[in-house]
């Protein structure tokens, strides 16, 4: 059996195979029945089935050869106005020849597009609405400009339930002849937090370590897979070792390839778990939010985040004194 990435190999290929997100699947089936659909906005955390749903919808609408009238663009790889103006337009403006009523263009990670690019996209969506339907996928619908949101049917994808994750994992394990202990599968479910891709990747990595996936092998994977510790960086900053904290930040950005936005999000969730006066946490949130906003605007990640670290260290210090 040829080796493959399980998360891809076991990706559902038709809507019927999607076992979770029943409400969403129900609405998408209606599109297939009527052979019509509006522009759509798929919002939700990673690994909840947005791209899968888009692929399955196109498959069910157009059949096996759907790839002819289907295009997938990644806003993170090709963001900016130019891409919208050229690639998207080129695809959208030419009517289909294969007899399908319209084409589908999936724009993945659309929340990574700048506001300018989104406005350009909005016009393209309107102009070519006859020939092309857009599905925009994003983690946060809030980062999509209002005019686009109002032109799309919104679908909110939620993290998978533990039972659903468990069911999927069992099926995959069976087909791949992977043995597992109950503890092992439970651990996978726990770390995945409803993110199916993370669950499957964890399972596959754990299965590559030992014949049987158990709690130990899962936690070994989890420990290794965590690229760098935001918490550790924050502790350094709070203990006054700013230079070490900045070094750590640099490592995360440059060597591990984390995005500044990812790190801000983690800083945000970490600080609220810390033991500092509640009132100070609001001040922290204010500083973090400002940094987050600046990053979205395209500011230098390291400069902004290290300024944030210096600010957080100051707030925490004052909190300790009072």
């Amino acid at each position, binding site marked *: 059996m040829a080796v493959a990435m399980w998360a891809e190999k076991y990706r559902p290929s038709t809507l019927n195979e999607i076992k979770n997100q029943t409400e969403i699947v129900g609405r998408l089936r209606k599109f297939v029945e009527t052979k019509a659909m509006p522009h759509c906005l798929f919002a939700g955390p*990673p690994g909840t089935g947005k791209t899968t749903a888009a692929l399955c919808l196109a498959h069910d609408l157009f059949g096996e050869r759907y790839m002819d009238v289907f295009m997938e663009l990644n806003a993170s790889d090709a963001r900016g106005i130019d891409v919208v103006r050229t690639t998207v337009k080129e695809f959208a403006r030419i009517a289909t020849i294969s007899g399908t009523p319209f084409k589908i263009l999936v724009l993945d990670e659309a929340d990574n597009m700048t506001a300018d690019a989104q406005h350009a996209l909005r016009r393209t969506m309107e102009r070519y609405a006859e020939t092309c339907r857009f599905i925009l996928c994003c983690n946060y619908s809030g980062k999509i400009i209002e005019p686009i949101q109002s032109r799309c049917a919104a679908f909110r994808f939620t993290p998978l339930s533990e039972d659903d994750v468990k069911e999927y994992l069992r099926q995959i394990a069976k087909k791949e002849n992977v043995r597992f202990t109950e503890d092992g599968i439970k651990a996978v479910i726990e770390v995945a937090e409803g993110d199916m891709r993370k669950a499957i990747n964890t399972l596959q990595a754990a299965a590559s370590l030992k014949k049987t996936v158990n709690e130990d092998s899962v936690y070994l994977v989890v420990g290794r897979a965590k690229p760098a510790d935001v918490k550790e960086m924050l502790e350094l900053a709070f203990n006054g070792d700013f230079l070490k904290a900045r070094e750590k930040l640099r490592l995360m950005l*440059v060597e591990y390839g984390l995005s500044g936005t990812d790190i801000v999000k983690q800083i945000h969730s970490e600080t609220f778990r810390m033991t500092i006066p509640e009132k100070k946490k609001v001040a922290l949130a204010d500083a973090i939010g400002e940094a987050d906003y600046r990053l979205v605007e395209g500011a230098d990640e390291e*400069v902004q985040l290290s*300024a944030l670290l*210096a600010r957080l260290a100051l707030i925490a210090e004052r909190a300790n004194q009072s």
Partner: protein
Amino acid sequence: MHLPWTTKYRPRRLSEIAGNRDAIDALLNWVKSWDEQVPRKKALLLYGPAGTGKTVSVEALANEYGYDLIEINASDSRTGDAIRRIAGMAAGQAILFGKKRIVLLDEIDGINLSEDMGAIDAILETIEKTNYPVILTANNAWDPKIRALRDVCQLVEYKHVAARDAIPHLKRMAAKEGVDVDAEAIKLIIERDEGDMRSIVNDLQALSSGRKKLAYDDVAWLAWRDRKENIFEALRMIFSAKNCLWAKKAVDVADIDYEMLFEWIYENAPRQLTDLIDRANAMDCLAKADIYLRRVKRRQAWNLLAYVFDLMTAGVALSRERTKPSFVPMKFPERISLMSKTRRIRGIQARVGAKIGRRCHISSMSAVKYYLPYLRIIFENNYETAAGLSRYFGFDEEDIAHLAADESSGLKIEKIYARLTS
């Protein structure tokens, strides 16, 4: 001995030349083909940037295979008559006994048409009559003034020497001179000199003189040698200024571009301002300067540049309120050295990410985030699966080496991979 290394270690055999294997093979095959019969095109034009080994490969070939090399280069007089005299003689005379010959006309795009009258005609004539291989070299084969020559020559391109080809040669050279050179330091020199081996060897010699060890940081300073004092002076002004005007003067004193000055201030401000409040305020000013800088760039709003300067100089200077004076040495911006140190790695990572992305419907950035950590675990622990996945994603040797824990496990994975594909 003060012989330049470029002379001392000038390659004497073709195998001693770094890089350009294809070009060297083409050269050798063409010269050898004369033993069978005179090829259709009786001249070869080696072209490519300076310091890629064009001349030296002809010399090494002549030495290794026993040819007499008759050489005319740019420094010789190259009027039509002179060329006819030397080259014509060399090419025309058939000798019964004695060595075979190669005629080398170096740097032909350096011919000054107004001075070297009739030079092109003379060369064309030489090629037409020759009984021996004629080899020409040029930096730019597409220079209009040598078009007539190009038409009668077979073309062979020399490219910039790649780092991985140059490094072993340079390391060996330095070792013979008793200098231990970091691979990262060599890479930086190669990058600076854009693969021009002659400059690289010269720089390597200059930097190594009087040293036993050459590390990355020794080289990083290279570009700043002359300006170090100015930069330090500017930084001292910023970190000790009591008023805005004085601090802002630093921009003129530094004499480097403002983005570079920003990097220097950004590196050193938190080192100089150790009080928590001062530091937070200074970093805040730098963060704001950065925002203005983005606006300048994005909207081409050069009028905003003044505010960038204000914030990064005066803003930082006046943040100093509580920090007690003490001597802290200035540091080279680490971020810049880290970026060039990791450029190659980041390049591979982006490529691996793109390959994963294509299969898994995801951006290369997200692929790095969501898949790479797990792939690493698999590559470190299960070579069979790693090889299978390499095939699945279409990874090449470099990608595999990047994901594997070390060199030997990388090679093991490659072996299994090779078995899978055969």
